[in-house]
């Protein structure tokens, strides 16, 4: 695909992610809507333009939940199958903020990896399409709902791949709230110390968390300077500027690399700003409010 076609496809996927998440939020009277608004271009860029995954045939039907991993279950089936076959030259994607699951499932549908009716299993008893993704959920291969553990897990995977001289990169999708956890900084220093240049991180810096704007909860700025101080290369981009994201992702460095995508948590859905300052989870407070969102959805999908 030509670059302009890639960008067009990413735009289509990003719009599709927002539409699907809004439709789902309407039909379920709740959803992680602001996360879809902020990360749609970021996730669409990853799945369409950045990650080197093996192709899969038809979109996959989400499997039913077959139980938790037990001793001796080396063959435990994780949600990585939605990323295709593993291979030394292929990339990996470890998603850290597991509450973005709905957004990730929508991205998998838009990119033909998850069946379109996959979201019908969302948050249903006995389904792998869980509200907070775990390693059996589509698009996940580790369990990261207790936030800030994925960067360490992915660093271990990247170190293993470095030992084996694999050319594939290990990508981590993170949220900015995770930079409040101490483990993140332990992982930053270790990845830098062990020169994991095959480790790439992309962050949705939407400056919003459960209690409200991050500046009112616990500030993490100056984020770029912090990460640079730990020995990483950092790119700072507008997280809705697809070209800028793709350009940052192409950067080849000898150190671990992080792309900070500054985003707007109400992007393409201005009505959501009425919820400010608390945007973490959208649940309609009245039938009237729900109808207003329904009307916005109709307008958007015209």
């Amino acid at each position, binding site marked *: 695909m030509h670059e302009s076609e890639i960008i067009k496809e990413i735009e289509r996927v990003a719009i599709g992610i927002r539409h699907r998440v809004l439709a789902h939020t309407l039909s379920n009277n709740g959803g992680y809507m602001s996360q879809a608004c902020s990360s749609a271009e970021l996730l669409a860029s990853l799945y369409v333009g950045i990650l080197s995954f093996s192709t899969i045939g038809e979109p996959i039907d989400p499997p039913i939940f077959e139980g938790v991993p037990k*001793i001796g279950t080396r063959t435990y089936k994780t949600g990585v199958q939605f990323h295709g076959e593993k291979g030394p030259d292929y990339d990996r994607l470890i998603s850290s903020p597991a509450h973005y699951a709905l957004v990730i499932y929508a991205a998998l549908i838009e990119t033909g990896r998850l069946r379109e009716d996959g979201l019908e299993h969302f948050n249903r008893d006995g389904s792998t399409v869980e509200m907070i993704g775990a390693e059996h959920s589509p698009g996940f291969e580790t369990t990261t709902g207790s936030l800030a553990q994925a960067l360490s897990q992915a660093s*271990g995977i990247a*170190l293993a791949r470095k*030992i084996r001289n694999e050319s594939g990169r290990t990508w981590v999708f993170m949220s900015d709230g995770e930079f409040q956890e101490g483990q993140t900084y*332990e*992982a930053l*220093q270790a990845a830098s110390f062990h020169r994991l240049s095959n480790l790439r991180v992309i962050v949705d810096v939407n400056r919003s968390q459960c209690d409200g704007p991050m500046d009112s909860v616990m500030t993490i700025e100056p984020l770029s300077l912090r990460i640079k101080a730990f020995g990483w290369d950092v790119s700072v981009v507008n997280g809705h500027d697809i070209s800028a994201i793709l350009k940052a992702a192409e950067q080849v460095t000898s150190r671990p690399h992080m792309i900070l995508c500054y985003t707007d948590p109400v992007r393409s859905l201005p009505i959501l700003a009425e919820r400010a300052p608390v945007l973490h989870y959208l649940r309609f407070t009245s039938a009237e409010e729900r109808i207003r969102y329904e009307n916005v959805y109709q307008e958007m999908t015209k």
Partner: protein
Amino acid sequence: MSYEIVARPHQQNFIDWAKDKPEVLVLSADLTNSCEVGKWRDTYPDRFFSMGMAEQNMMGMAAGLAREGFEPWLHTFSVFLYRRPLDQLQMSVAYPALKVRLVGFLPGIMTPGGVTHQAIEDIAILRTIPNMTIFEVGDATEAMSVLDIAHAVDGPVYIRMLRGEVSRIFPIDEPFVFNTARVLSRGSDITLITSGIATEEALRAIPLLQERGVSIFHLHVSTLKPFTDPQIAEALKSAKHGVITMENHSIIGGLGSAVAEVMAENGVQATLQRIGLKDTYAHGASQKYLMSEYELDAAALIKRIEKAIGRSLNIDEDELNEQRLVSVHSNAKVEAL
């Protein structure tokens, strides 16, 4: 009576053992020489990864390496393997049942480092974690043969390890056997179940007790989870004057609690006395001092047996001191951190 002392049983043994196992890696959190893997690092520099004082990240990176087919062996003090990084141990390692080996040194009151360094509830906490396997070694033979046993477990393993000057109590040709207690004596008055360093301590008192006609069924346990060895339920049933457990750990949640569960589940009607830390923290002092202060020693065991059988055995301190095994309390064992 005294035992052969083996100096640093883990050090060379682990090097020899890992030679033909390229998947075995060591992750260390700034206690490399204290955990007898300094020479391992120098022998296999490409398989040794320094993680610094950052156990949460170490646990996560171990998980990532294990997912990719490596077998990371984490070496640090027991206390740093489960207290600070417990969530990481649970979610990154235990939930996916990964082959990560947690080699914990200086368990319980073996460290003079005080409360911050004393893992007194590690077994209690780790027993409740699904997919965990827990071993505790009681001598040099077990410290060396536990490697094969841990290696064979297709899930996470925690080992309460011994270092430095370690007694060899069990013959070298009788290695650690998974989930199988060692029968050290048979008897019908008291069933005594011990683990770790409590076994060597109990062995100081047992000859004196036997001389006075107390018949003891003594089992040494080195697999604390799973805890399904049928020998244990069998031994519990034969105790005329009750059951005693003895461990270098809190009386809550460790060996004593595991035995209580087996007794209840098997309908064993007997009194259980648990020797261990009585729901208390300890402090920094020598092992000998702390074992006496917290009644974890041979004298404490004799008192409990006297209580169980309802008579005094007139064992005086001098007599017990003669049984003081050189290996247990010699100055050779006093070590820095």
